[in-house]
């Protein structure tokens, strides 16, 4: 009975620590985003909706990271890592319109070719995806290995 209570206490302590760690990581990431964004805030007058698009991206990315950290050391952590990598690829491809951005400012039609950035970002995300899969395989491999005793 006493052992049961102790393990519950340990579990709760572990969960609180993980939540705290995940929260702090997310907070640091969000603060870094706010700092960087402060340099680009004036671009919003030229590109309507830019702030909201970036904000949405950061929010979902931070949430996926937060949940991934919450379930750390379980197989679900890798699910969230994969989801994060796929989200980056999908969101960037959709919002950057395949890499060619067309903007209209007053009577000027502006075209920005971000295909190089998109290609690099997609490749890095795929690298992240491969890493997450390797981690998942490694995790499953470790779990299935019988303990080795001399």
């Amino acid at each position, binding site marked *: 009975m006493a052992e049961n209570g102790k393990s519950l206490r340990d579990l709760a302590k572990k969960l609180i620590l993980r939540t705290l760690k995940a929260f702090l990581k997310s907070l640091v990431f969000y603060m870094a985003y706010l700092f*960087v964004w402060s*340099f*680009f805030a*004036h*671009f919003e007058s030229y590109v309507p909706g830019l702030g909201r698009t970036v904000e949405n991206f950061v929010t979902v990315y931070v949430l996926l990271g937060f949940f991934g950290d919450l379930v750390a050391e379980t197989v679900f952590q890798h699910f969230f890592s994969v989801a994060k990598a796929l989200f980056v690829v999908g969101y960037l491809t959709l919002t950057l319109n395949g890499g060619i951005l067309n903007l209209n400012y007053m*009577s*000027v*039609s*502006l*075209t*920005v*070719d*971000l295909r*190089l*950035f998109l290609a*690099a*970002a997609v490749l*890095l995300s795929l*690298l*992240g995806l*491969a*890493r997450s899969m*390797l*981690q998942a395989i*490694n995790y499953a*491999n470790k779990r299935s290995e019988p303990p080795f005793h001399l």
Partner: protein
Amino acid sequence: MDASIRVIGVASTFLWILLVAFFASAAYSVKDLHLDIKKPQLSLTQEGFVVISIPVKIENGGFYNLCDFNLTTMVADLNGSKITEGSTLIPVVRRGDKIDAFHNLTFSLSSFLLDKGVYYLFNDSHFNVTALISMKLAEVIPVQALSNFSVPWGAPLYNFHVGQPNLEPHNITHLKVYVPLSFENHSPVEVNGEIRLYMHSDGETVGYGETTVAAPQGALCTCLVLLYVEASRICEEGFLEVYLSTQLFSYGPLVIPYG
């Protein structure tokens, strides 16, 4: 396997930081990129071509070089026919550099007025200008801006009017014929030249006169052309042939009946 996964993770994070930092700094550099297009200047070549020079000033205060800066403009009339086209390429604008360049558009006003229509000689109108600016930010991000706008065209001989000839006796055989002429110069350049007038009556040329004109930009020009005509050859009705010859263009004959 743990080590290799960790190496992939570190490399991926490092590359992400590099990528985001590079593109964020390149985008931030746009703030310090100043492009100034000043008022066009008109000049004439010895061959009779009009050169429109547009001073372009580029100041690259960003973190990276700018390359393949290209300014292309095309001027078309109201029907969409191309009048002239010009392109200016600046291969590299290094960071911290200030570059002054001229974007030139050259065309022959004389051939334009004769080919595209006399309409523009006597009537104010508008021209459509298409301007395309393209460049590579930080040497790798292609950006282009396209704009269409119209510029007013001022006719050099706006409201050109030839009045009724006034006759005065000169001697026993000849008459002095005064023909009043007037026009407004709405064009951006001064119109200097001469006007020649031929008087035709009953199928024959009966008199000739000429005068010089100097009409500054926006000025109303009025003048009298004096012709000496044989009194016996002049009829009550006939027509005048007007020939205009200026530093920019030559035009004629403009046939105007009288009587």
